[in-house]
């Protein structure tokens, strides 16, 4: 009988060179995948495993033989015989400057990754005069009890827009607005979140690289100086609501859930949750206060 069997994905092997070393990857993989396979640590800001690269940050650039300009490794698909260099002065210089630009225009201090790379690439933020350097200075938007938007931390990486749109949620509550220095992530007509199309899945918060989008619980604890990641446990369990079986990672501090996310590589969620899974946990800890 005519029968559709489980399709087996057939992928062609592609061989490229990374810093002189041969790396075997597959057609459709990116230069970043090859670099990672070769053991290189590549700084990335606008890249995420669950969102389509938009090439906004340019931190992940590498030298590609035959290419006049540096290429973004996160979005450039591999081709047989490519020769890629990541440890050149040109690459290091470019990454350093991009990181400096990001760190002097937005507050990246809550991103451990970016703070680490600033050191790794010898970034010198002091050489940018704060008097003449344009910075994101937006006030924090606190419009509900679930998450806040601190656009002074935003590096305009687009990941939240992608997650809200075609990469996961298909809600399209946010997009880029304005031009040039007025570029901002915004709801339609900049209305407050509760009045926007937002459905509070928090999938934008989950992909934000700088904590510009932040759970209100984390924001409040940080404000009180009581955000202590080192004292937190992370426990994987299954959401208590519908029957889809989304896995949750519960971040717990002092027997309180302070943050909920889902593994990016989970076959059910790809890191995404709905408002109930992400924020609906409160009922287990509405306890009389001591």
């Amino acid at each position, binding site marked *: 009988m005519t029968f559709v069997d489980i399709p087996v994905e057939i992928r062609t092997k592609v061989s490229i060179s990374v810093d002189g070393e041969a790396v075997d990857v597959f057609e459709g993989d990116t230069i970043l995948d090859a670099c990672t396979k070769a053991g290189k640590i590549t700084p990335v800001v606008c890249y995420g495993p669950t969102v389509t690269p938009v090439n906004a940050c340019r931190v992940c650039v590498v030298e590609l033989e035959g290419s006049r300009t540096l290429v973004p490794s996160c979005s450039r698909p591999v081709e047989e015989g490519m020769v890629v260099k990541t440890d050149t002065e040109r690459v290091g210089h470019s990454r350093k400057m991009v990181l400096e630009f990001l760190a002097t225009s937005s507050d990246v201090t809550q991103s451990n990754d970016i703070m680490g790379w600033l050191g790794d690439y010898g970034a010198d933020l002091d050489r940018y005069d704060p008097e003449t350097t344009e910075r994101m200075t937006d006030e924090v938007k606190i419009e509900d009890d679930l998450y806040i938007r601190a656009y002074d931390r935003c590096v305009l990486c687009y990941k939240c827009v992608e997650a809200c749109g*075609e990469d996961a949620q298909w809600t399209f509550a946010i997009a880029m607005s304005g031009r040039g220095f007025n570029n901002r992530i915004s709801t339609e007509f900049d209305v407050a979140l509760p009045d926007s199309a937002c459905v509070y899945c928090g999938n934008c918060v989950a992909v934000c690289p700088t904590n510009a989008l932040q759970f209100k619980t984390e924001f409040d604890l940080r404000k009180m100086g009581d955000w202590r990641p080192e004292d937190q446990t992370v426990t994987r*369990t299954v959401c208590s609501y519908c*029957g*889809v*079986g989304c896995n949750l990672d519960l971040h717990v501090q002092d027997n309180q859930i302070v943050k909920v996310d889902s593994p990016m590589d989970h076959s059910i969620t790809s890191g995404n949750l709905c408002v109930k899974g992400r924020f609906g946990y409160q*009922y287990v800890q509405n306890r009389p206060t001591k």
Partner: protein
Amino acid sequence: MWGSNAREAHPIFFHHALAGVRNGAKMIVVDPRRSQTAKFADLWMGLTVGTDIALANGVGKYILDNDLQNDEFIAHSTQNLDAYRESISEWTLARTAEVTGLPEYAIAELATAYATAESAQICWTLGITEHHTGAENVMALCNLSLLTGHVGRYGSGLVPVRGQNNVQGGGDMGALPNKLTGFQDVENDEIRAKFDAAWDCTIPPEPGKHLTLMFEAMEKGELTTVFCIGENPADSEADINHARALLRGLDLLVVQDIFLTRTAELADVVLPASAGWAEAEGTVTNSERRVQRVRKALDPPGEAKDDLEIINMIAERMQPGWGNPGPQEMWDELRTVSPMHAGMSWERLEAEGGLQWPCPTLDHPGTLYLHGWLWEDDLGGREPAPFTENTWRPHVDELNDDYPLLMTTGRVLDSYNTGVQSDGYNSPIRSGEALDMSPSDAARLGLSTGDRAEVSSRRATIEMEVRVQPDLPVGLCFTTYHFADTTDTNQLTIEAWDKKSGTAEFKATAINVKPLIAA
């Protein structure tokens, strides 16, 4: 998607459906409401509430009349086609259109798209099952999959999307009146003997009662004691005033729950439990039959105890020496009596992140989809799958001049069932407390969003706020029962229930709406 508003009720499942649509899949949504799900569809079929069998039979007849069926599959893997063909003979396009309120071309388009697709799934939820013909509604859909061969192979299938995080697991574990653990039949002597030996006891050979029959037994005075674990029937049952009276009339009601729910308030004894998903260790089974571990992240409050520990303590009183076996011990015992779980060791569940039953041996990878045997050349001694005959019967609560509007119920995105859990957080998008009504019904009654109205059914009258909702057809109202404390929707609903499944007809209540003049 048939009778499912997955966009709101199963959002992450719907992400996968939308990824499919993005990859070129066609999505047809059958739902009386133009739901959030329907807004993503290629075709929305806004049928009249309770006419699902009429539509399914009409689609079946169109497939057969136009020779779109899979003859090879039908001949090899099914039986009873002739009786089925005879049973749907009245359902011409014209008759189906008349009963369902759908245009003929749309019915033809649905039938053609489903029958000619390389692979196709029918996904449904309570829009199919919460009717007095719920089981027959399901069977009518199964017939379509048998006609076309859209079952038992990759990409095709029948998908009842489960509504609670462990409703599947509850059934798997034998929390069904007629089944023992692993869906093994309680009326089968051999099966029972196996369990008798394993558990050193004698299991009664008769099936027990499902919830609806329990309430009937309470009414007859045959059931006087209830031990209720993690269920809130005093808010969730249809015709709730009647159900509450019956619960109050019990000699003994013991409720084990994480909160003092409305049901717990009626109880003689309340046993405070911990939250199964965050304060205890164990497993749950999701809609795709995937067994996954839940883990303890929090210490439960006060004297609240793990459900398992409470049950063990009661068992110890009944039979000294029972002890306090933990979740892993219980799981290992389960694997010895339930063949479909036998290969799922605790270690594998940890390491592999979840396994789909049946998984009979330790080297078995688990099962992606069921009923693949239908496609084997040799059916392995199994009976071919039978077509069934299903008769359309309109909903029980009739519309007339006194009750001219139909009210249907469902979930909204941020809330859940009787609100015991979802009331706990401050959602900025909370809705569902109001009675949603079409613009023309609202205009006829002189009502605007925010106005209050008296809503009556044949059983009760409650006061509700009205919200004008342009996605509803004329004559249809919608609400939820997430807010039982303030809007006690189930006072209105009808207890008429499906004799096969025990499910009440929450989807169809005849109501009257009377505007209240602002004081």
